[in-house]
């Protein structure tokens, strides 16, 4: 208990740093995978190749990547950018497949109708395809969020600070409480991020939360119409 109180400042600080390192890869993952996934879906022939490439990217182990990246892009070994860039690569690797599935799942009749009433391709993408791919994109980005937050800890091994630091040191000195703080802190960040993402989804995609009323409403409304028609 004493340890917790004595180290509260550091725990809080590392939690913020951990969260801060997690945000850019999640955003990069979303922003890059949307156009790649869209193109992979639009140009069917490219889909297999694109998915194979991202599959290979994802198979690259994280620790070696952290270590090799500086020599490839010329950063310092301890630069947090190594972690951010590596995790962005994983985020894209996970999200491209989801994004491609998300666009594939959009009802073609709706797209056709949108074109028929006069949406340009560009306008249709922003106003129709992207929002309708939204629910699947959201589910993908929630997975990316959790995976990124847990992978940030690995960066501690190469000396980039995060909650992984407690985890690592707890093991080294055989102090379970410290390990626990590392684990619980990571879970708390993951839960908070997930709640934020789910909340954003509700605000940005209000139509997805009215579905449950569908059957009831439809039945109630059909009746007067039938009576009218009869």
């Amino acid at each position, binding site marked *: 208990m004493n340890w917790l109180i004595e180290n509260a400042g550091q725990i809080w600080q590392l939690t913020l740093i951990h969260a801060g390192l997690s945000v850019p890869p999640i955003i990069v993952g979303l922003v890059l995978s949307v156009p790649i996934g869209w193109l992979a879906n639009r140009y069917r022939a490219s889909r297999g190749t694109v998915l194979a490439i991202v599959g290979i990217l994802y198979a690259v182990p994280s620790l070696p990547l952290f270590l090799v990246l500086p020599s490839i892009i010329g950063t310092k070994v301890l630069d947090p950018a190594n972690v951010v860039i590596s995790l962005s690569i994983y985020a894209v690797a996970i999200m491209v497949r989801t994004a491609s599935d998300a666009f594939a799942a959009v009802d073609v009749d709706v797209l056709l109708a949108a074109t028929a009433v006069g949406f340009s391709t560009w306008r249709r993408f922003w106003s129709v395809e992207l929002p309708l791919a939204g629910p699947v994109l959201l589910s993908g980005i929630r997975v990316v969020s959790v995976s990124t937050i847990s992978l940030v800890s690995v960066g501690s091994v190469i000396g980039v600070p995060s909650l992984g630091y407690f985890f690592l040191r707890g093991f080294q000195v055989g102090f379970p409480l410290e390990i626990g703080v590392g684990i619980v802190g990571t879970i708390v960040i993951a839960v908070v991020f997930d709640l934020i993402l789910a909340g954003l989804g509700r605000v940005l995609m209000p139509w997805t939360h009215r579905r449950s009323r*569908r059957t009831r409403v439809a039945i109630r409304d059909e009746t007067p119409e039938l009576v009218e028609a009869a």
Partner: protein
Amino acid sequence: MIEFRSVTKEFPDGTVAVRDFSLVIPSRRITVLVGSSGSGKTTILRMINRMVDPTSGVIEIDGNDVSTLEPVKLRRSIGYVMQNSGLLPHRKVADNIATVPLLRGVKRKDARVRALELMDAVGLDRSLADRYPSQLSGGQQQRVGVARGLAVDPNILLLDEPFGAVDPLVRAELQQELLRLQHDLDKTVVFVTHDIDEAFLLGHQVVIFKKGGLVAQVGTPQEILADPADEFVAKFIGADRGKRALRVRSEAGRDVLVDSEGRAAGVLVTDDDEAGAVAAASGASAQGDQPR
């Protein structure tokens, strides 16, 4: 007026959907394209608003070759309604109806006012304006689709089997509404269906298709019924059976019409006889209502 001149459409996979098709679609009338599935009706409809471009031939709207018109602009000037409505599931009913005005840059507030008026016009309660399409019945969704098609007050309205997926009672009602709307608004309507009854009910001009976008016959319903061009048309319209093949039978001194199964379909009257027949008919039904 819309005119097709020797239009052929071959898709990249080699399917010839439409072959050497020529037709004049008169303004302010309903032209119905009818034929079985795969006969090229949808392809023909989509060539009008350049969703599909013909392989050869010319399509003109009021003398303007559509291939010279900018597709997005052209589409915004033509109403389009399809089966399963094609509504945007993430937009509320009023926003769906206002889709094209909003694309054209009409102010949100004005577009909404117009959308609510259109809801009245197609028989939708205004209280549905803030629902999502998934919260409506199939019939209501089709009404929204029609309202969206009318939103920019287009001269031309294209409908592709718009009532194909709603139940028969609602369909009958929607058909009557469409006739009323066309009568009131004077649109040039091109309507696709595979249902010959629907075609004869709605069409001023009916075009019957065979496979491969070949025209079997063009004419008014009366012309086609009176003189089917060939065996195929006769069979397609069912001229030889059911309620289309009526026979005269003398019954109690009157000529009664019966169908091929012998069911009474009506009585035969001459034009100046009509008033009397109506009286007779209402008398008969009044008698039928008497308790025994």
